[in-house]
């Protein structure tokens, strides 16, 4: 029996072995390359997607585990008002350098704001701690959170 996954609002028949980590199904089979492979060890956050609205690392858990769940990747995040607002805020704060960490962070910030529309700086820092950025765009990402939450201009 093949695996069926619900991804970005559509039901998809998956040809890959159901034991394949979700990220490879997304990137290789479905050509959704927005989620990045950074470690494959659930240590860096580059591969984050939303599963039923929760930030979920896609690099190690088999795709089969996500059957029956609602998977949203960065490619479809802008279709929701929160996602679009977070993306705008990232642009406004120019919160990326190389941008390799960015899709995962945009996903994480969107989930954070859905849970807590006006997070404190400490809450944002805690929520984003699973995510690494090696270019040091963190201060700007935290500004983007403020902008997306409508907290001033993101000035500190």
């Amino acid at each position, binding site marked *: 029996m093949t695996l069926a996954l619900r991804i970005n609002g559509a039901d998809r028949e998956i040809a890959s072995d159901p034991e394949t980590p979700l990220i*490879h199904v997304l990137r290789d089979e479905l050509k959704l390359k*927005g989620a990045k492979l950074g470690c494959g060890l659930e240590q860096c956050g580059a591969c984050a997607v939303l599963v039923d609205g929760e930030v979920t690392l896609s690099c190690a858990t088999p795709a089969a585990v996500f059957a029956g769940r609602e998977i949203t990747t960065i490619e479809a995040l802008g279709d929701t008002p929160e996602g679009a607002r977070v993306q705008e805020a990232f642009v406004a704060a120019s919160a990326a350098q190389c941008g390799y960490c960015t899709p995962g962070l945009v996903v994480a910030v969107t989930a954070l704001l859905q849970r807590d529309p006006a997070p404190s700086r400490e809450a944002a820092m805690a929520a984003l701690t699973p995510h690494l950025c090696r270019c040091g765009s963190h201060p700007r990402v*935290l500004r983007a959170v403020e902008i997306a939450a409508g907290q001033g201009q993101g000035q500190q």
Partner: protein
Amino acid sequence: MSLEKHPLVRDWIGVSGGRVVVHTGKVDFGQRISTALARIAAEEFALSPEDVDVAEVRTGAAPDEGMTSGSNSVVQSGNAVRLAAATARAAVLARLAAEFDVPTDDLELADGFITHRGSNRKTALTEALAGIDPALAVDPGARLRPREEVGVPVSHPPRGMRAMVEGRYTYLHDLDVEGMLHARPVHPPHIAARLRGIDAAVIEKLEAGGVRVIRDGSFLAVAAPGEWAAIQAAGRLARACDWDCGPGLPEIDVAAALRDNPVERLPVIGGLPEPDAALPPAPDAPDLEAAFTRPYQMHGALGPSAAMASWDGGKLTIHTHSQGIYPLRESICESLDLPLDAVELVHVPGSGCYGHNGADDAAFEAALVACAMPGTPVLLKWTREDEHAFEPYATAMHVHVAARLDGRGDVAAYYAEASGDTHRGRPRAGPDRAGPARLLANRLRADPLPPYRAEPNMNREGGNHRNLTPGYAFPETRLVKRLVRDLPLRTSAMRCLGAVANVFALESVMDEAAAKAGADPFGYRRRYLTDPRDLAVLDRLEARLREIPDPAEGAGRGIAMARYKNQMARVALSVDLAVNDRAEIILQHAIIVADSGRIVDPDGIAAQLEGGFVQGASWALYEAVTWDRDAITSRDWDSYPVIRFDNIPPVETVLVDQPDCPSLGVGEASPGPAVAAIANAVHAATGLRLRRMPFTPEAVMEAALQADAD
């Protein structure tokens, strides 16, 4: 250098598809050089930056600008593009003036058109540019549009930003072409291990399953249709290998080796090693003496290195995120015995690299795999473990400082000796196969090349003596550099090179000397500064600090300053922090004041300064490569911790614009001062002097025990 090699306007400026195109040999890895170059051309052509494209960087087509490194891109490529654009502007205006038979002054260049004010006759800029004489040389004296004409630069989102936040930006890792196989190397336990054999049954099984196994001596890789298949195959193959690990990695105290190994001591005078100068004598009875150390640290790109290669039997094409496609091409050609024109390298963005990481090694490995299967493109990626364990690291360093103080507590003599391994591991061609020897796989292939033996960097402000020379006018300075070889790990260039350890040492000593003299750290530094721009950044920092509250009870504030390479951007920086009861350093606030000459892209400058601060803080607090006899033990983000969001303070940047001065790169200006300011703030908060990076809780506790014992 860039203009000498590529003197023509068309080397830098072109027109394609009705748009102005900038050509550059510098590659963008998140430092926004392409954004800056587009803005520079836009300024000279009175265009919006969105109307300027930046061409792909590809061997054969792009100007050869060597490496994208050393914060030189804005100076080299930026200067070339600005002068080329200004020359082109003057040329098209002169030609149209002749054609319309009007004075040049009656022509106006705006919004992409050149218009004659009297008659409203006009021509599109791109059309006029397309007609430029192909032999037109860049005029080094071309009139540049001054700031009054160009206007104050405003921030636009950098190129690619929207695509990045929407997950549409294409990285090398995302390339996907028809018939492509995914490849993974299977690296040895450590670089000196040799492959004795592989369980043949495992290879047979892998091959039966459609996996290709590529072996050349101890270099081993797999290729498979699909990334997950390649990852699994690499794991199976790794378990089937029998390695001869030899004596293993030397488990030595590297700081002690750096201090004690008998190597040539090179006097450094005016930023230059002078082998024939008299060797400065060791100071007798210094009033201040300390040793500062930095461990091996890694670039640790978030996305492991990758490359795509294909070989059609006559031509090898490699897509790479290397910082130097021309030097890499030469070394790959030499390694494979191919003529230069048989190999083409195309730059495709990878994740941020901060210097020479695994990019070049991955490119060569992809080439080896591709050559073993003509006609099949391969996308080779390193794993997280490969990147951590096999990238070339920033060398560990040891800086010994001694100072003599006068009756007022002023520095009367300053002595510093900086020791480290080489920062030059990039595969640049040279005598004794110096290029190939610096490609990892050549150390593993049949007939392996021996490790590269570096010579001391004799350039001004190079390698271990970068920022060894104090920016302060001390009555007497005695500076020495030492290149220590034969240390355990492979090293190369990482952001700032020796400047991190040297600025850490100098600025810590300044803080200590100021405290000894009972002076405030600003006033004490001013005693030795004469350059108005140095003074200006320091004044601005002090003024800004007066506007904000003092650090809370128990917290501390430290400052540091440096002018990168003693000739580039100036930074003065403050850090507020506290040390909690677990001896962890919690960053609370940072201010960066910078003067990088004429500002082109203010937001890009601020981003680089902030990013440099964060990386410097990560080096200061967390990072150290570890190993034992069997292997590098820093193999992932748990065994090699780095800074995370939970310790990111608000960071303020203050930019000092110098409209009449050349623009300077800032990518390497803030990390050194960040490390030093953190150390000085720890002293302000706790009274402890930390002189060994990283400042982990163990290091803080050790310093406290030491202080108790003293």
